[in-house]
């Protein structure tokens, strides 16, 4: 069962990938769906067994590497933290596989798509069940590869290729630090296996590296790695571009699973990070800034998927500052609920795009809510959960994250709380801007498109229903276990809070206005969106005209792409040309080539001496003789 949950998707991927052309499109796609469904069954039953049955287990498969004390295996570690992820990933992935059957039905290379999708799921499962850092890194890079392939799935589109490359390379920047973090971890703990690392914390607290506590350095390196995968500010630029992939991909990879790998890593390494207070502060600031930054950009984007992508980025910021204040449980809880409602939003968006004949610009939509009522309802549920409206899933997790931020210590926690509240307001605003622009108002598409607007087939709607159930009830149902009074029994030591960290307790003791505040700003945001886009549609234009600088700043995503292009991409290209044309060709090759030319010239001159005329030779001999005799006689140099 434990093995099946992880390896069944791989089986599906291999069937579809290698034999897809042999067995035909339909067989290949249903093979992957069935494998996924079986994996989900295994995943959910292991969730029941491990999380509720309190029976963690480790399945050792085979030794991977053993070199001079650096030893680690392929092994599956099932504790509460990993089964939460396994259950969520397999379930969401199954739904998305099913949805893709409908969504990709007109595609030319269906087996390839399903093979990638299953491969991705397998890698993600390897990541969350890893029992050492290197296996985690295997999954980490594996999902990177799969997402590269999926973003660039339509490889004939230049923009898709560019986005795929960007995603891989930006992620690699983070991976560099991850790699160094693993190296330092090994030299500190003598192992990269979680069990050994966690036991060595006590001793490692005294160790320093270059004058800094070694745990701080490890935590920093790993967090820098996580920033890449989880698209935190600075390394977020790949995520919005990744929307070039097919929509189910966006839902699976860029909402539910891949981007949460960084959060998972932090939660997994909680025993280490707990003892790195400065890095925790840093994480808080980065997370909070990301939450606010992404929400502000999301406000002005016009591509339906990009708005949701920025919202994902923003929600990841929430998870990170929850980690920063020490409430790992809250971060994982938000990760869990977010997976459901964000996947729901993406798939609903996909349903809209499907209905609108592949149109993604919300300025060309509108007036379609009566034609696709089910999608419309699903979009509402997802948005309500995202905005944190009471009793939807997001309400429980987001509220708790903000309470934890309020209860946290130091200025960083205060900063996070303020950013979080502001971002909550913006979240509600841009969500309803999206709903209104997409579904309401006068139709802005041409009538040809409008005639074709249709509700999606059942195979696409059923996954929506299942995810909607998640978006409705997971919060209420799991709140007590994840962050409520049973959290210690539930997590069962898979997430560690240091003895000095009382955040899980303190977060329940905040003043009465704190839990209400996010709801209030959320409702205000919704109201403002109605005002601006439904009742007085002239306001947004006026605001944009009043502060054109700010508007452009937001529209261009704070100019991050332009900045990076200037300071990294262009100089690197120019440097590459200079190094090649000047460094290699002129200087380094110039020397041997120059030497060769010199030799040729010199020998050319020497050749002239050998003219073949006896008189010349005799003359030269006489001169030489005279020289020798004079040296001998007059003792020059004696």
């Amino acid at each position, binding site marked *: 069962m434990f093995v099946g949950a992880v390896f069944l998707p791989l089986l599906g991927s291999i069937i579809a990938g290698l034999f897809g052309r042999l067995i035909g499109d339909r067989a290949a796609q249903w093979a992957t769906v069935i494998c996924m469904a079986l994996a989900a069954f295994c995943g959910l039953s292991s969730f029941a067994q491990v999380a509720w049955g309190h029976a963690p287990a480790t399945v050792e498969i*085979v*030794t*991977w*590497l*053993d*070199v*001079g*004390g*650096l030893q680690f295996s392929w092994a599956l570690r099932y504790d509460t933290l990993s089964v939460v992820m396994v259950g969520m990933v397999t379930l969401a992935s199954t739904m998305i596989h099913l949805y893709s059957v409908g969504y990709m039905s007109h595609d030319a290379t269906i087996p390839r798509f399903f093979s990638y999708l299953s491969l991705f799921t397998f890698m993600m499962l390897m990541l969350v069940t890893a029992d050492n850092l*290197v296996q985690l*890194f*295997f999954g*980490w*890079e*594996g999902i990177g*590869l799969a997402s*590269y*392939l999926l973003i*660039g799935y339509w*490889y*004939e589109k*230049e923009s898709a*290729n560019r986005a*795929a*490359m960007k995603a*891989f*390379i930006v992620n*690699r*920047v983070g*991976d*560099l630090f991850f*790699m*160094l973090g*693993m*190296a*330092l971890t*090994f*030299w500190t703990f003598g192992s990269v296996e979680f069990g050994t690392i966690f036991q060595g914390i006590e001793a490692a607290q005294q160790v320093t590296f*270059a004058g800094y506590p070694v745990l701080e350095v490890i935590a920093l390196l790993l967090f820098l790695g996580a920033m890449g995968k989880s698209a935190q500010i600075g390394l977020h630029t790949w995520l919005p571009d990744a929307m070039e992939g097919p929509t189910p991909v966006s839902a699976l990879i860029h909402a539910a699973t891949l981007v949460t790998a960084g959060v998972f890593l932090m939660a997994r390494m909680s025993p280490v990070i707990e003892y790195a207070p400065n890095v925790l502060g840093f994480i808080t600031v980065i997370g909070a800034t990301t939450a606010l930054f992404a929400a502000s950009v999301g406000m002005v984007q016009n591509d339906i998927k990009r708005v949701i992508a920025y919202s994902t980025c923003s929600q990841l910021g929430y998870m990170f500052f929850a980690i920063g204040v020490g409430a790992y449980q809250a971060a994982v809880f938000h990760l869990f609920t977010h997976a459901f409602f964000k996947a729901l939003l993406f798939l609903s968006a996909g349903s809209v795009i499907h209905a609108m004949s592949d149109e993604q610009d919300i300025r060309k939509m509108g007036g379609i809510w009566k034609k696709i009522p089910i999608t419309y309802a699903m979009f509402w549920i997802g948005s309500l959960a995202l905005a944190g409206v009471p009793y939807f899933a997001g309400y429980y997790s987001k509220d708790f994250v903000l309470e934890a931020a309020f209860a946290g210590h130091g200025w960083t926690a205060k900063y996070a709380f303020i950013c979080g509240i502001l971002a909550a307001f913006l979240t509600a605003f841009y969500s309803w801007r999206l709903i209104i622009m997409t579904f309401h108002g006068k139709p802005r598409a041409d009538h040809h498109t409008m005639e074709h607007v249709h509700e999606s087939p059942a195979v696409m709607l059923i996954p929506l229903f299942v995810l909607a159930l998640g978006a409705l009830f997971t919060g209420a149902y799991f709140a007590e276990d994840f962050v409520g009074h049973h959290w210690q029994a539930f997590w069962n030591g898979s997430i560690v809070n240091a003895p000095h960290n009382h955040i899980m307790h303190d977060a329940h003791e905040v003043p009465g206005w704190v839990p209400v505040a996010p709801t209030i700003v959320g409702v205000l945001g919704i109201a403002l969106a109605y005002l601006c886009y439904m009742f007085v549609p002239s306001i947004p234009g006026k605001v944009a005209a009043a502060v054109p600088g700010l508007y452009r700043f937001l529209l261009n995503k704070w100019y991050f792409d332009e900045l990076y292009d200037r300071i990294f991409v262009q100089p*690197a*290209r120019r*440097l*590459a*040309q200079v*190094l*090649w044309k000047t*460094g*290699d060709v002129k200087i*380094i*090759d110039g020397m*041997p080539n120059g030497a060769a030319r010199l030799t040729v010239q010199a020998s050319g001159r020497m050749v002239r001496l050998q003219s073949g005329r006896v008189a010349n030779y005799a003359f030269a001999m006489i001169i030489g003789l005279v020289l020798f005799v004079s040296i001998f006689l007059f003792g020059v140099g004696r």
Partner: protein
Amino acid sequence: MNAAGFPLLSLLTFLPLLGAGILLFVRGEEQAVAANARWTALWTSLITFGLSLILWFQFDKTTADFQFVERLDWMPEFGLGYHMGVDGISVLFVLLSTALTPLCILSSWEAIQSRVREYMIAFLVLETMMIGMFSSLDMVMFYIFFEGVLIPMFLIIGVWGGARRVYAAYKLFLYTLLGSLLMLLALLALWYAAGTTYIPALFELRIAPHVQVWLFLAFFASFAVKVPMWPVHTWLPDAHVEAPTAGSVILAGVLLKMGAYGFLRFSLPLLPQAVEWFAPLIFALSVIAVVYTSLVALAQEDMKKLIAYSSVAHMGIVTIGIFTMNHQGISGAIFQMLSHGVVSGALFLCVGVLYDRVHSREILRYGGVAKIMPVYAAVFMLFTMGSVALPGTAGFPGEFLVIVGAWHANPWVAFGAALGMILGAAYMLWLYRRVIFSRITRDDLRVLLDLSPREVVTFAPLIVLTLWMGLYPSSFFSFFEVSVAALVTRHEAAMALPRLAGM
């Protein structure tokens, strides 16, 4: 004394030469000669490979001593002799050579149409030289084989190469010969000091530190060119570009390993103080190699040149690993040498597949190949990922261990080596995107055929190896585990000595 019961290593070394000798006597019509030559060469190399598998199965992994030893005295009064033997460090390189040669011959099946017989002779002689080099235990023999490799390689590039083949061949020859002459001096000095050319006997030698410095520099001149290290790397791109596909495969797969092998065989065990003294220089040159050549690779417009530059970067990782002087670093370096042999060899084969069809290596000439050659695109993807060291492929364990080892030596070196991760991904994906992805714009590309059965057979072993080395590298590490441990221990002991004497 010999686990196989017969002189296995000599047989492996000279069997290809025998095949070459037979080929000399093939006469007849040109077509028939060509066909005969192909089959004879293939069978010779396959039999050699089959025999070399004895090494794989019978090699004793629990000892660092030399095995399969053969010893014949030649001029005992001068300490000269015929000594063969392998230890954990060299055994896998013998296997790499015997495994790559049949693949090279297969890949030249249709690509080479002129002077086929001579071509095959050159390849078989090359195989003899490579195996001989990795299994000689006598300095003089080592030197002869080490230099002997150049001759068939020079011919392969100079006769069957591209447009600028003569320039490239001479550059290769002169560059490497210049360094080798200095190595010859060092070998003579060692011989003079030890009175024997038997390599294991040299390990007993204690060499004064200031002498070590000069010896190290002399060896370095030769090995650095062979690796190649920055800034003596420029012969490599030219040689690769002009060489026929199979020549590139062998060049990248085995010949580049000779320099690093030389470091492991001579510099590390014989010159511990000098190694310690020069390590910072090597680190600096290697990090420059990684960053500099990766950037240069980014600017290339020729597929082969790009992969050639990436080889320089990867070998930079190898030299970093060797000079970390710890278990992880050296093991990682050896593994990286093996994996690079497989992966970059395969990448050159990938380029060869397109070159055979279109006769161009220019990147911009292609685009959208995935549409018409999906199997090829998948194979190319796998090796691309191997090259960027994705975990699960052959490239990862080596690079990871080198970075771990380098961190212990100096974290900044580790950082420099890790920069290669980003740049490596950039140039490989940039190559892949321009060749394989995007829309087909040229009509002549639309009619290309996907991999032929012969090509599939050529790639299949490399695919298996790439995944095997990535997923279960232990079966390779176990070969050199003990040897590397012995090497590190000996080094540490040697470093401890002067300190004890000082006390």
